[in-house]
């Protein structure tokens, strides 16, 4: 683990060079999906990227299973925080991977805080069930998940000097944990939506994408509001921004630093960010984009289940 952390730090330092190479990574986003013949002159000035020719085309099921892995992670996080237990055997699928860490929050929550937590937990559980239902027999089971990775992550982010950070304590710590996931979920679904070929799948992906954005906004607003209305300010925003900076390092930028005047994460045109699967994998595996092919680590010690498991580079 220590070796891995050191790698992370080293890679973090080379962020600049990674960002410089982000363009070519982004080229992987628009995999053969929609063949488009189109009314001319209506295309927004969005940077177009050449379709890659080397990768085998991903199916909708591949993409949805990729999303399902992320939903397993979120559901386990929130359900454990809310109730102390995670997904049922039915919801986790056959031969599901083990989950390390995660517990009912030890801090005392106000009724309002508890209501917020319960809502998100139910939403993420629903997403697991929805995707499993949609995928049917080809749904992947829950991979091995390590919820103690928040500790090393917080250390690398510069939040703590050791790996002791635990989001399953106070509501404030929980918010930082939730913050870690939600904006990533938004960018992942945005990127994934563009890969889906079935209109129905696209609509469903867009529907979940928006739910993650509702969540992300709520978490971001709560963090800012706590800082603004608590004396002395607990400085949660600054902590969240360290997470944000690390995500940007690992996942190709795509971050808007949180403040009371920037709740929404979006680009200069106020268009929400997207990440390709490589960028998402780098974040959840905790490995920078310059680390080469990375296929496991971080929250997923054995990697994701399915066909999208290793970053291209």
């Amino acid at each position, binding site marked *: 683990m220590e070796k891995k952390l050191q790698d992370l730090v080293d890679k973090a330092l080379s962020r600049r060079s990674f960002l410089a190479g982000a363009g070519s990574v982004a080229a992987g986003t628009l995999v053969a999906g929609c063949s488009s013949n*189109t009314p001319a002159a209506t*295309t927004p000035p969005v940077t177009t990227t050449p379709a890659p020719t080397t990768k085998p085309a991903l199916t909708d099921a591949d993409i949805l299973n990729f999303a399902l892995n992320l939903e397993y992670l979120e559901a386990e996080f929130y359900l454990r925080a809310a109730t102390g237990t995670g997904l049922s055997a039915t919801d986790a699928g056959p031969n599901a991977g083990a989950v390390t860490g995660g517990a009912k929050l030890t801090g005392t929550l106000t009724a*309002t805080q508890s209501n917020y937590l319960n809502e998100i937990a139910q939403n993420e559980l629903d997403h697991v069930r929805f995707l499993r239902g949609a995928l049917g027999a080809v749904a992947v089971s829950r991979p091995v998940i390590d919820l103690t990775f928040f500790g090393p992550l917080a250390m690398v982010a510069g939040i703590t000097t050791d790996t002791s950070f635990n989001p399953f304590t106070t509501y404030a710590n929980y918010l930082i944990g939730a913050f870690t996931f939600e904006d990533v979920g938004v960018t992942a679904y945005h990127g994934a939506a563009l890969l889906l070929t079935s209109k129905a799948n696209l609509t469903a992906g867009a529907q979940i994408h*928006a739910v993650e954005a509702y969540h992300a906004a709520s978490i971001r*607003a709560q963090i800012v509001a706590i800082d603004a209305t608590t004396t002395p300010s607990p400085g949660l925003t600054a902590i969240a921004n360290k997470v944000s900076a690390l995500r940007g390092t690992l996942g190709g930028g795509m971050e808007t630093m949180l403040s009371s005047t920037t709740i929404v994460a979006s680009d200069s045109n106020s268009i929400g960010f997207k990440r390709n699967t490589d960028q998402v994998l780098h974040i959840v595996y905790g490995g920078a984009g310059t680390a080469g092919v990375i296929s496991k680590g971080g929250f997923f010690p054995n990697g994701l289940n399915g066909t999208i498991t290793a970053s291209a580079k």
Partner: protein
Amino acid sequence: MATQETQLLDEIIVKSRRKMISLGGAALAGLAFTSTAKAQAPALTDADYLNFALNLEYLEGQFYTLATQGKTIDQIGIGIGAGTSATGGGTVTTKGGNNYASCLVPFVNPLVKAYAMETATEEGNHVKFLRSALAAGAVAQPNLDLFNSFNGLITALGIPGLTTFDPFADDASFLLGAYIFEDVGVTAYTGAAAALTVPGNLDAAAGIQGVEAYHAGLIRTTIYGLDQNPAGNMVKSVGLVPMNGLSAVASAISVVRAKLDGTAPSATRMQADDIGIASGSNLQQVMLNGTTNVPASSITNASTTGSINLATSPSTTAGSLVFSRTAAQVLNIVYASPTGKPGGFFPNGLNGNVK
């Protein structure tokens, strides 16, 4: 123990349901007619859908810019004319006989003010982005009404004594005004996404959809949070309410939106395709991974397996997906007309081929 406000909300819901049931046939007939008419028209292009979105962004951009600057978007340099013309767009009707300066909200809560300013910038950016993308094909801003529309909508809520509503009056009123728009924007972009044929357009639409959802989540969290902490540094003005009052009004707005778009409430989904901000004794109940209900907020406007306003519910796989609306359903809402006749926020209808 039901508070006066929650009782009020219950009454509103029951009343709305009855009205919905009695009007259901007519509303559905109107929708069907609209669909038929659309089917005979030539297929809609990406540009048609983006112009549809642009109309909605004009509305949002004007609302937030007036609230935060006391000016219209064209007065701060955002074009509203057809194509690339800066001028030549429709009028904006506001209070004080179009006294735009009077629309500047006297914000008291610094966070609400900051949120309003951020949203104004972002909605303005959406107008600019879509106009840039559509270029010569961009439609002009249609005539907008930010005065009679709000009064009509608030009257439709059926809350006794509430027949006028000035969303620019104060923090709380502004939040409710914003609430009216953001969730609708999410459903509109969600519904349009699958119709787009150019990947780049889908990319942009998904990005804007996400931002609208961030806005909606922000507004709903703010309303709910302030309602739960009335002693906080938030004004509780307009005589609208004590505890849970803002949430109750927001929920009533959701009911009206669902009624306008023609979706019928069900036993487990009394607010049909639009979930209000449940609070107090009306909190939604969810089972999580157990077998008993626990209360939950409803920040996300989405289908859940939990029930709204019901103590028990059959566990269905609703999926926690945000709702999707067709263009016709969105028009019904912004026109405040179950039959899709121009009115409400767009007294002369939208510009473009979706109207």
